[in-house]
């Protein structure tokens, strides 16, 4: 029964657009987008514990590729090109950051997102002469939703596959201790690079798929670093090293932040900050691990 649960869930979500309003569909797209982002982020960072803040660098690049190419090339081709550019970018970044660990990696990825944004802004202002671009695509909200849902399903499926595969084991060992991993004969560079490129390609594709919703695109909008922060906190809240952890963290947090930004825009950063601190102190391994710990304690108490 448990095996079919994800398939049933997927079908229910796929049928959801027929039952909700346009506003509801917009919310669904947002939620599924963050499920995709958090799951894709965890694909690399969950096991290796390399905290990447470059999410929006890839996500924004995906959106920008669509903004630049949407009038000249067919949509399907644009998506493929976006994915390829994301993969190439991740390959370059991955190759150059392999020797950085811990705080250096965090800072590098954060700097990367800012650098990409600054360079595109400068290029648009000085070379093309326009800061904003328009995306006029004949893609309905429902189609965007289904594409994003499919991407989320692929991401979680890929994560499940990697978890059972040698690659997953290798990533876990690297996360526990890189020196041990190297001694056990795990090719550190190749393993990290593979996971990083897979994760970044999905992030880029997510940006490309979500982009028609924006219509108007400019660097400050698509490279908004809040996206990176939200992705991290969602994945960590649910449990970044679990298959369903990131999705479990993403859905409630997305709706919570949506509610906050509409109703209490002034206290939004405060709540976000307190949440970050609470996760670090109370649930360092995520909600799923926390529940398991509680259950174990309860069982011991009952016996």
């Amino acid at each position, binding site marked *: 029964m448990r095996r079919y649960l994800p398939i049933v869930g997927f079908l229910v979500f796929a049928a959801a657009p027929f039952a909700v309003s346009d506003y509801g569909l917009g919310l669904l797209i947002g939620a599924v987008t963050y499920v995709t982002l958090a799951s894709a982020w965890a694909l690399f960072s969950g096991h290796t514990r390399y905290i990447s803040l470059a999410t929006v660098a890839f996500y924004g690049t995906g959106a920008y590729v669509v903004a630049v190419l949407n009038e000249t090339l067919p949509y399907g081709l644009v998506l493929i090109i976006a994915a390829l550019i994301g993969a190439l970018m991740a390959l370059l970044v991955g190759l150059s950051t392999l020797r950085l660990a811990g*705080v250096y990696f965090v800072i590098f990825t954060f700097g990367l997102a800012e650098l990409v944004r600054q360079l595109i802004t400068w290029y648009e202002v000085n070379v093309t002469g326009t800061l904003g671009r328009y995306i006029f695509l004949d893609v309905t909200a429902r189609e965007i939703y289904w594409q994003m849902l499919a991407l989320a399903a692929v991401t979680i499926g890929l994560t499940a596959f990697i978890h059972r595969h040698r690659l997953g084991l290798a990533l876990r060992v690297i996360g526990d201790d890189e020196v041990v991993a190297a001694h056990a004969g795990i090719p550190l560079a190749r393993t990290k690079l593979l996971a990083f490129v897979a994760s970044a390609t999905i992030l880029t594709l997510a940006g490309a798929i979500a982009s028609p919703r924006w219509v108007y695109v400019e660097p400050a909008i698509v490279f908004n670093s809040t996206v990176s922060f939200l992705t991290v906190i969602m994945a960590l809240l649910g449990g970044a090293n679990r298959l369903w952890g990131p999705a479990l963290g993403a859905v409630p947090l997305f709706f919570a932040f949506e509610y906050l930004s509409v109703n209490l825009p002034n206290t939004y950063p405060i709540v976000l900050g307190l949440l970050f601190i609470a996760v670090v102190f109370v649930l*360092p391994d995520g909600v799923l691990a926390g529940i398991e710990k509680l259950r174990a304690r309860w069982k011991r108490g009952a016996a």
Partner: protein
Amino acid sequence: MLTTTLILGLVLGGTYALLALGLTLQYGISRIMNLAYGEMTLAAAFVLVALFQGLGLPPLIGLLVIAPAGYAVGWMLYAVMMRPLVARAGTSGRLEVDSILATFGLLFLIQGLLLLVFGANFTSISYLTHGVNILGVPVALNRLIAFGICLVAGGALVIALTRTRWGLALRAVAQTPNSAPLVGIDVNRVARQGFALGTALAAVGGASIATYQTFSATDGVIFTMKALVIVIMGGVGNVAGALIAGLALGLIETFVATAIDPGLTLAATFTIFLAVLLWRPQGLFGRG
């Protein structure tokens, strides 16, 4: 033209160096990578403006209030928030990720509070704006005073670290936190002092920035990034390196803004930063 760039660059670099000193102390001594550093700087800047506009307190007097207040806030933060993380992590590498995430939360918390209390508008004060002639280059007096503050604070810190017994204890913990207890150093206390001292420097840096520059509640990340760039260029925990790298960054930014394009200063900062990270992650002046 060259003298102008040189002098303006050095004046700007002085503030940067001071900012970076605090961050490098916090990471070097207390092992906390404080991503909320820029927000602490901004908070001090806002407090200075509030003291100046609300109570009519001159900025230089305000500074005498803000620096100890910064020390006290840093002391409290370490005791309440960072110490439990340090204790939980033990000897594992967990502290690094935990401290990044916790100070990340702190970043948003302080930013949210600043927005709530002071609003999202750009803030600045007009204080001693008339120019002073230095080698034929007119420099605003407030900038010169800010530079003077940086020289005094930075110089005092270097002397305290290298010439006093207290500085010796700080350096001992920075170098070998595991062996420091063997010679009777209370690592927990020294780490707390290091964090508090770093916060005090952030406050002094923020207060001196407020005397000459316009800022808003969301600018904190930029200060953090610049301080990080300098810290990494100078080598983490390296005080002299941070001073030199801070002055260098001020010069580079002024040069890029005047000679190439003002829109590229941030991009230049990040490019240098990424290049240093990749080429020499141990810092330009580090060993190895």
